[in-house]
């Protein structure tokens, strides 16, 4: 592996580890259990090793000290407290910064201070925790030791197998040179097989200090001839071993299966890092598991690897975007050809149409495959909010738990990137306005710790993301007041839930008593909605006073290609997404009524739905002005339904959605456009947007 790719692999891996670390540290605070501590220790251990290999010396040294501290925590010599977690989180931030930016004097100072503060936590540690930074810089990561081992002949009688000791020794580093001396070994017929005659000379390259090597010989150094000589100065090592950094995952799989223990994994990982042997081989060598179990795990690892690869798909999205665009053009061409096929004679037309059906099926599947590549789980996005929630909750002196569900739910990569900010907004809102202070909660008979739940799931071709808080819910009275204040409704007018929502989504609308430093001004729920609608999604609010609020975001699974129903009004053709259509009908005169102050409604199967005359709504000419002479398409968004009056239904086809820039129109009823087979542009009706427009 070249220098650059070792570095890249390290950067990539470190990023992921730091993310996991952050999540675990926060979990540690809430729930200090041994497993979490072990995990954290292992993560830091991994970064330490990898940073050493990749040449990030400062990071290596820092994490080395950090590892000592964590070791003390692991051995219960240092208690888990908020102060500790704060320090660990800060240290992590330092590591993140150090890894991704260039060195500067600031960091050196921080390093000094932090290392000094570690000392205050674990003053009992044998190793020099209070390292001077001069030492830190002077030490080279790799040391070379010449080990000479000659065991006493009766060593087997003590029940000791020197081979094990030596294997332990070499697990601490990598063997540069090894020599077995059997000059003391007599001939086969003369020897006493129960006596030891062999000696070794080993040149070991290791990141461990001398003491660690001494430890390997702890039980034998007294009456055996062991010598360890530091010969580092005799060597310069410019070549770094490539780390099989991603290979540790096989080990993790085996641990999860209970085939090897975590301690064994630790040993294996350190051997692997320093000797570059395959994890599987080391495991079998050390006798921790048999080859069969390892092979099985390797098989799984390959499967998992591809999944892991999926979560780290890099900026190939540009290429995927190109693919999708091309596919979109195919769809458009297809519809041109379909049109031409319509105009052909029966015989020819028939065969061509058949061929086109086949092609249609293929394009649809093609599209699904491309979309599948772009899908990544939402878990990491959710997880990154843990830190955010902790910090913000701290700032406003509230106690809040973040509950995450549905981490495996997959969304298109672009969509995930774009909802990240809106989600943050809404979580902040929930913290600021939703969850009450611990005192208020207790007074209300609730637990002092509030819960915010992030949930994600698939349903009927859509992805739903929910932000649920168990706070105080929306204050209807306050919203009413605000609405009256702003002249949106009259003093005695009733408002239903839908209108309530609409008000909240208006720019600048806020019922917050104080304009907090963090939010205030109703933190742009209007901006949030705009962002989500730009992704052709919808946002809905549900709330129960005193119990909490749920924000539900619905996003389409397929971004760009949908089934559309073409409708005509006068000379204009519009597209209504098929998924939103409930039914189409030609209404009878009697079924249409006018409700005062609300407009026209249409009776559809025992339900009155608002009637929208599209020609009126859009200010265009139409063939018909009487609904009973025309057609009404009943559409649905969430739980709301409306009937859209059009002149005629033209047909149904797959369409590629092209977005409309925001400034083109103020109408929320139009969210995009599509290019028809004949090259003209047809505007796509946004059902949710139209429903919203009607309501106000």
């Amino acid at each position: 592996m070249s220098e650059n790719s070792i570095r890249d692999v390290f950067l990539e891996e470190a990023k992921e580890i730091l993310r996991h670390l952050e999540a675990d540290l926060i979990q540690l605070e809430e729930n200090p259990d041994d497993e979490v501590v072990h995990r954290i220790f292992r993560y830091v251990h991994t970064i330490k090793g990898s940073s050493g290999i990749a040449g990030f010396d400062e990071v290596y040294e820092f994490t080395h000290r950090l590892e000592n501290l964590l070791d003390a925590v692991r051995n219960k010599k240092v208690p888990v407290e908020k102060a500790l977690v704060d320090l660990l989180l800060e240290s992590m931030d330092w590591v993140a910064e150090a890894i991704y930016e260039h060195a500067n004097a600031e960091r050196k100072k921080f390093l000094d201070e932090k290392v000094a503060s570690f000392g205050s936590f674990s003053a009992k540690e044998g190793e020099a925790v209070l390292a001077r930074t001069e030492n830190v810089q002077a030490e080279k990561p790799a040391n070379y030791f010449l080990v000479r081992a000659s065991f006493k002949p009766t060593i087997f009688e003590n029940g000791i197998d020197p081979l094990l000791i030596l294997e332990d020794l070499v697990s601490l580093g990598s063997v540069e040179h090894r020599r077995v001396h059997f000059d003391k070994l007599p001939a086969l017929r003369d020897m006493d097989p129960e006596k030891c005659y062999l000696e070794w000379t080993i040149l070991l390259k290791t990141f461990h200090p001398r003491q660690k090597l001494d430890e390997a010989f702890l039980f034998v150094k007294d009456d055996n001839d062991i010598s360890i000589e530091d010969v580092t100065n005799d060597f310069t090592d410019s070549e770094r071993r490539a780390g099989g950094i991603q290979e540790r995952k096989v080990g993790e799989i085996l641990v999860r299966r209970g085939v090897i223990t975590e301690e064994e994994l630790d040993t294996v990982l350190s051997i692997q890092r320093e000797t570059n042997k395959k994890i599987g081989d080391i495991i079998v060598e050390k006798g921790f598991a048999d080859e069969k179990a390892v092979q099985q795990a390797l098989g799984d690892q390959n499967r998992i690897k591809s999944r892991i690869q999926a979560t780290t798909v890099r900026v190939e999205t540009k290429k995927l975007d190109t693919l999708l665009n091309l596919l979109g053009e195919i769809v458009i061409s297809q519809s041109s050809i379909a049109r031409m096929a319509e105009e052909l004679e029966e015989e020819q037309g028939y065969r061509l149409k058949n061929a086109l059906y086949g092609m249609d099926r293929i394009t649809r599947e093609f599209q699904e495959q491309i979309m599948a590549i772009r899908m990544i789980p939402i878990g990491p996005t959710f997880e990154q909010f843990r830190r955010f929630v902790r910090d913000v909750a701290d700032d406003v002196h509230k106690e809040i738990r973040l509950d995450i569900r549905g981490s495996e739910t997959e969304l298109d990569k672009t969509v995930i990137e774009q909802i990240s900010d809106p989600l943050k907004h809404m979580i902040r809102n929930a913290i600021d306005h939703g969850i009450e202070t611990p005192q208020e909660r207790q007074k209300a008979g609730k637990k002092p710790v509030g819960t915010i739940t992030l949930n994600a799931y698939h349903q009927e071709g859509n992805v739903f993301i929910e932000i649920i808080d168990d706070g105080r819910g929306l204050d209807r009275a306050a919203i009413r007041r605000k609405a009256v204040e702003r002249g949106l409704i009259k003093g005695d007018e009733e408002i239903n839930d839908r209108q309530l929502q609409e008000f909240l989504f208006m720019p600048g609308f806020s019922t917050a008593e104080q304009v907090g430093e963090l939010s205030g001004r109703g933190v742009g729920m209007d901006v949030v909605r705009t962002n989500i609608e730009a992704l052709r999604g919808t946002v809905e609010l549900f709330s129960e006073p005193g119990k909490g609020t749920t924000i539900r975001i619905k996003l389409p699974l397929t971004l760009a290609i949908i089934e559309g129903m073409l409708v005509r009004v006068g000379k204009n053709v519009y597209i209504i997404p098929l998924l939103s259509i409930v039914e189409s009908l030609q209404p009878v005169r009697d079924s249409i009524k006018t409700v005062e102050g609300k407009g026209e409604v249409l009776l559809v199967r025992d339900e009155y739905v608002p009637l929208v005359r599209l020609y009126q709504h859009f200010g265009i000419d139409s063939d018909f002005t009487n609904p009973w002479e025309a057609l009404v398409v009943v559409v649905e968004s969430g739980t709301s339904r409306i009937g859209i009056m059009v002149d005629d239904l033209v047909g149904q086809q797959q369409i590629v959605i092209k977005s409309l820039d925001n400034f083109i129109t103020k109408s929320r009823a139009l969210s995009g456009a599509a290019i028809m087979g004949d090259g003209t542009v047809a505007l796509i009706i946004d059902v949710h947007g139209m429903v919203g427009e009607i309501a106000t």
Partner: protein
Amino acid sequence: MNAAENKKAAHESAEQEMKQYVTFVIGNEYYGVEVLKVQEIIGMTQIVHVPNSADFMKGVINLRGTVVPVVDMRTRFRMPEREYDMFTVIIIVEVKNRMIGMIVDSVSDVVDMAESSIQETPHFAAKIETDYIRGMGQVDDKLVIILDIDKILSASDLEKMGQDAEESK
């Protein structure tokens, strides 16, 4: 040369720098836009009107698979409207990473103009709001008004205009 002299020299050469402009006609005047900002020029094509849009927003067109909004420059500059004829073209420009089309009466030559020859416009000199004008220059015997495209077609401006249009209805 010392620093001050260097600066002056650089400034001078910048002034001498020749840039190319696409010139076109709206009303009786010649206008110009930096050629680098022009994507292409197409003939009049079917424009699909978009409801609830500002009056100068004529609609959208299909430009090889991309939906591009089109602005009628006459309406934008509050000039009387006129029927489109065979000379009417749409100049597709790139503004802040978006493509927008400008409908103009006709297109003229691509000319070279030095920065130094572009003079500031006195407030009353042009028919259109001088905010949108970078300057005026002379090419042969024509007076060319150099437009600041970014300003004229900036999204926020358009949105605002849109709102104004709404309110004035």
